[in-house]
C-alpha cells in the first residue's frame, strides 16, 4: 500500500458483485444478512409448526394431524425456534452490528465467521430434511423428523424405544449446529476483547456488545456439555453402550443433568442479546443515557455466572431429594435479583426522558412488559413444591413463551426496526411497524396468557390431544386464535419489508440520533466500515455529555486506500464436510465418514495455507 498507489486505485474498493460472491464472502455485514434471512426463514418454519400444533389443540380429540406427526411438530418447533431461529437471529446482529459498535473493520477471524454461517445453514437443512426423507428409510411415511421433544429425554431416545432415524437426525443435526455456535463464540470473544477502537475501554462498550460478550462465554462453556451428552446418546444408539440405561447400572437422569447444565445457560444465551438490544433502544428514543450502565453490565455478567448454578430447577419432579431441591430453589430465586435490577434500570431510563414512540421503542417497551410476566411465573417455578404442580404442564409453556416470545422475539424485533436502516439503507414504514407491534402484542397475550390457566387446570404439555372433560377446550381455542393473530402480525411485517425494499425512504447515517459508533457511518456502511477508525472518549461518543462534545463522524472518503479481503471459498468447502460426515452413521455407510472427514480436512488445509490478508 504505497502512496503512489493512492492515485492509481480508487480510495474505496468496489463492492463485490454476483451471487457467487455471497458464497465466498467473509464480510461480517454480508454474513450478518445471510444469518438474518436464513434465521427468519427458519423462524417462519417454526411458526408454521406452531400453527399446526395450535390447530390440532383448538378442540379436544382433534384430528388435524396424527399423534406421530404431532410429536414431531412440537419437537421440531422447539428445536427450530431455539437453534435455528432465535440464536441465529441474535447472531445476525452480533455479526452486523458488533464490529461497527467497537469501531472495527471486521471480526477477528472473517473466514471462521463465514464457516460458522455455512455450518448453521447446512445443519438446519440436515435437521429439516427429516420432514421429507421417510421413504429413504422405509418408514412408511414422509416425515421422520425428531419426535422426542427438543430436550430429548433418555431413555425414550434410546434405540429400543425410538428405533427409527428420527432421533439420529436430532443428535447429528445438533452436533453440527454446536460446531457453528462454538466457532462463532471464539470469534466474537476475541473480536470484542481485541479489536476495539482506540479509547474504547470495556466500560465504554455499548451494552449490546457487552451482552454479546457474556453470551459468547456462555456458549463456549455450555455447548461442550451438551456435546458430551449427545456423544453418549450417539454411542448408545450406534455402538450399544449403556450410558443412559438402568439395566447396566446407568441412569437416564445423567442425560437430564448434562442436558440442563447446557440448557439453563442456553436460556440466558437466548435472552441476554435481546436485553442488550433493549438497553440500546431505550436510551436512543428516550434521549437519555442508560440508567445505571455499570449495574446493568455487571448484572448481565452476574446472570451469566449464576446461570450455571440453577440447572436442576428443570428437574424438581425427578426426586433429587429435599436438600438438592432446596439448594436449587434458592439459587433460582437468587438469579431473579439481577434480572429485576435490569428491569428497574430500564424503567428509570425511560423516566424523565423525552420518549419518541417509534416502532423499535414499542417493541423494547413490550419486551419489558412481557418479560415481567415471564419472570414472575419463573419465580413461581423456583419453588420446588409449587413447581410439582406446574412442571410439564401448560403453565411452563406459558412461562417459556412469555420470556422467549414476549421477551426475546420482541427484543429482536426492536433490534430489527432499529438497525434495519443501517443494514439495508432503507427505513421500514413506521405505521406498518406499529400495526405489526399491536397485532403481535394482542396475539401473543391471547395465545399465551390462557396457558397459565390451562396448565393450572391440569393439562400436561406435549400431548397431541386432551379430553373434553378437562374443561380447557375454550381456553385452548382462544390460544389458537391468538397464534393466528401473531401470524397475521408477521404478515404485516413481511409486507413492510417487501414494500420498503425498493421504495422505502433512504436512510441517512443516523436516522434516530443514536449515541454509538454504528450511527457515525453511512447506511449501509461501505465495505471497510470506517474510513478512519475513530478514537473514542466516552460511552456515548455521538452525544454531547457533561464532559465531551459529540465526536466528529469519519470522513466520507478514506484518506488512503483501505485493503479489504477478497473472500474465500474454503470455509464453505470445509463446512460441507460436516453433513457428509453426519450422513455416515445416519445411513450406516462407513465410507461417507471418510469422505466427510476428507472434505473437512481438505477445506481446513487449503484455508490454513491460503494467503488471506485481513
Amino acid at each position, binding site marked *: 500500500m504505497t502512496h503512489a498507489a493512492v492515485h492509481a486505485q480508487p480510495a474505496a474498493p468496489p463492492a463485490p458483485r454476483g451471487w457467487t460472491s455471497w458464497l465466498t464472502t467473509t464480510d461480517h455485514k454480508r454474513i450478518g444478512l445471510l444469518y438474518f434471512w436464513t434465521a427468519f426463514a427458519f423462524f417462519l418454519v417454526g411458526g408454521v409448526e406452531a400453527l399446526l400444533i395450535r390447530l390440532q389443540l383448538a378442540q379436544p380429540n382433534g384430528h388435524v394431524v396424527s399423534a406421530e406427526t404431532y410429536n414431531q411438530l412440537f419437537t421440531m418447533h422447539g428445536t427450530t425456534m431455539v437453534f435455528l431461529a432465535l440464536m441465529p437471529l441474535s447472531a445476525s446482529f452480533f455479526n452486523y452490528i458488533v464490529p461497527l459498535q467497537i469501531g472495527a*473493520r*471486521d471480526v*477477528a*477471524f472473517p473466514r471462521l465467521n463465514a464457516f460458522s454461517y455455512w455450518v448453521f445453514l447446512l445443519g438446519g437443512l440436515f435437521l429439516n430434511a427429516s420432514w421429507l426423507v421417510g421413504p429413504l428409510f422405509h418408514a412408511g411415511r414422509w416425515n421422520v423428523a425428531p419426535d422426542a421433544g427438543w430436550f430429548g429425554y433418555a431413555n425414550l431416545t434410546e434405540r429400543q424405544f425410538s428405533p427409527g432415524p428420527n432421533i439420529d437426525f436430532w443428535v447429528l443435526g445438533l452436533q453440527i449446529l454446536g460446531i457453528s455456535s*462454538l466457532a462463532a*463464540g*471464539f*470469534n466474537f*470473544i*476475541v473480536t470484542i*476483547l*481485541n*479489536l*476495539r477502537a482506540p479509547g*474504547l475501554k470495556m466500560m465504554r462498550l455499548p451494552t449490546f456488545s457487552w451482552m454479546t460478550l457474556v453470551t459468547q462465554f456462555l456458549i*463456549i*462453556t*455450555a*455447548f*461442550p*456439555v451438551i*456435546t*458430551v*451428552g449427545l*456423544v*453418549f446418546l450417539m*454411542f448408545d444408539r450406534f*455402538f*450399544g*453402550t*449403556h*450410558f443412559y440405561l438402568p*439395566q*447396566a*447400572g*446407568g441412569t437416564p437422569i*445423567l442425560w437430564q443433568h*448434562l442436558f440442563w*447444565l447446557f440448557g439453563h445457560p442456553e436460556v440466558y444465551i437466548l435472552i441476554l442479546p435481546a436485553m442488550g438490544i433493549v438497553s440500546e433502544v431505550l436510551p436512543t428514543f428516550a434521549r437519555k443515557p442508560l440508567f445505571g450502565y455499570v449495574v446493568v453490565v455487571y448484572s448481565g455478567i452476574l446472570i451469566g455466572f449464576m446461570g450455571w448454578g440453577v440447572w436442576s430447577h428443570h428437574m424438581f419432579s425427578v426426586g433429587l431429594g429435599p436438600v438438592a431441591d432446596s439448594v436449587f430453589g434458592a439459587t433460582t430465586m437468587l438469579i431473579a435479583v439481577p434480572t429485576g435490577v435490569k428491569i428497574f434500570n430500564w424503567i428509570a431510563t425511560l423516566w424523565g426522558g423525552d420518549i419518541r414512540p417509534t416502532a423499535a421503542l414499542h417493541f423494547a417497551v413490550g419486551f419489558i412488559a412481557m418479560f415481567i410476566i415471564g419472570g414472575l411465573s419463573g419465580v413461581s417455578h423456583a419453588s420446588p413444591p409449587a413447581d410439582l404442580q406446574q412442571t410439564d404442564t401448560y403453565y411452563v409453556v406459558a412461562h417459556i413463551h412469555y420470556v422467549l416470545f414476549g421477551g426475546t422475539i420482541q427484543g429482536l424485533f426492536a433490534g430489527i426496526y432499529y438497525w434495519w436502516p443501517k443494514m439495508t439503507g432503507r427505513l421500514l414504514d413506521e405505521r406498518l411497524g406499529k400495526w405489526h407491534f399491536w397485532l403481535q402484542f394482542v396475539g401473543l397475550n391471547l395465545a399465551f396468557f390462557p396457558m397459565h390457566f390451562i396448565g393450572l387446570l391440569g393439562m400436561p404439555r406435549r400431548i397431541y390431544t386432551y379430553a373434553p372433560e378437562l374443561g380447557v377446550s375454550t381456553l385452548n381455542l382462544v390460544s389458537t386464535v391468538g397464534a393466528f393473530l401473531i401470524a397475521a402480525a408477521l404478515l404485516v411485517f413481511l409486507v413492510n419489508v417487501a414494500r420498503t425494499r425498493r421504495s422505502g425512504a433512504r436512510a441517512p447515517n443516523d436516522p434516530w440520533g443514536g449515541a454509538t459508533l454504528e450511527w457515525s457511518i453511512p447506511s449501509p456502511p461501505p465495505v471497510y466500515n470506517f474510513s478512519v477508525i475513530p478514537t473514542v472518549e466516552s460511552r456515548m461518543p455521538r452525544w454531547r455529555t457533561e464532559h465531551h462534545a459529540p465526536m466528529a463522524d469519519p470522513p466520507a472518503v478514506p484518506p488512503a486506500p483501505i485493503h479489504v479481503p477478497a473472500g474465500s471459498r474454503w470455509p464453505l468447502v470445509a463446512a460441507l464436510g460436516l453433513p457428509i460426515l453426519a450422513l455416515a452413521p445416519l445411513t450406516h455407510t462407513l465410507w461417507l465418514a471418510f469422505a466427510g472427514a476428507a472434505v473437512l480436512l481438505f477445506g481446513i*488445509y487449503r484455508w490454513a495455507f491460503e494467503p*488471506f*490478508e*485481513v
Partner: protein
Amino acid sequence: MTHASVTHTSMGLDSRKMAFWAFIGSECLLFGSLISTYLVYKGKSVVGPYPHDILNIPFTSVSTFDLLMSSLMMVLALAAVQRGDMRWAKVWLFMTALLGMFFLGGQVYEFTSFVHEGLTLQRNLFGATFFVLTGTHGAHVTVGVLWLLTLWVRALQGKLGPANAMTVEITGLYWHFVDVVWIVIFTVVYLIQ
C-alpha cells in the same frame, strides 16, 4: 501478515493466541464432562472387568512419561523456531510428533489388550466411560500429531521460520493442554481407584 498478528490489539495479546485460550477453556468443559461422568459411574458397573482387574499402572506410567517428554520436545521446538534455528526446530518438532505416535501406539496396544480381556465399550459402564474418555483424548492427540507433522513438513519446505513462531507457540499450547488432560485422566482413572 494477518490482522490477527498485528501488534496493535486492544488487550495487547495476539488474537490467534487469545482465540486459542478461549478454545482451551471450552475444551476444559468438554473433558470435564467426560471425567465427571466417569466419576459418577465409578463403581456402578453391574459386571466386570473392573478397573483393578485390568488397568496396568506400570505400562501406563511409561506412556505418561512419554507424553511428558513430548511436551519437553515441544518446548525445545518452540525455542528453536523463535531463535531461528530451523535445523533443531525440525528435529524437535519431529521428536514431539514421534513421541506422540508412541503414546498412540501404547493406547492402541492397551485398548486391544483390554478388549481381549473382555472389556469392551458395551460390556459395562467402566468400558463405556473409559473408552469414550480416553478415546476422545486419543483423538485429540491424533489431531495434534497431524498438526505437528504438518508443521514439520512446512519446516522441511523452508516455509517455517521465526516469523511464524506464533503458529508454533499455539501448537505448543494445544500439545501441552492435551498433556495436562492426560495427567488428570491418569490420576483420576488409573491412580485413584
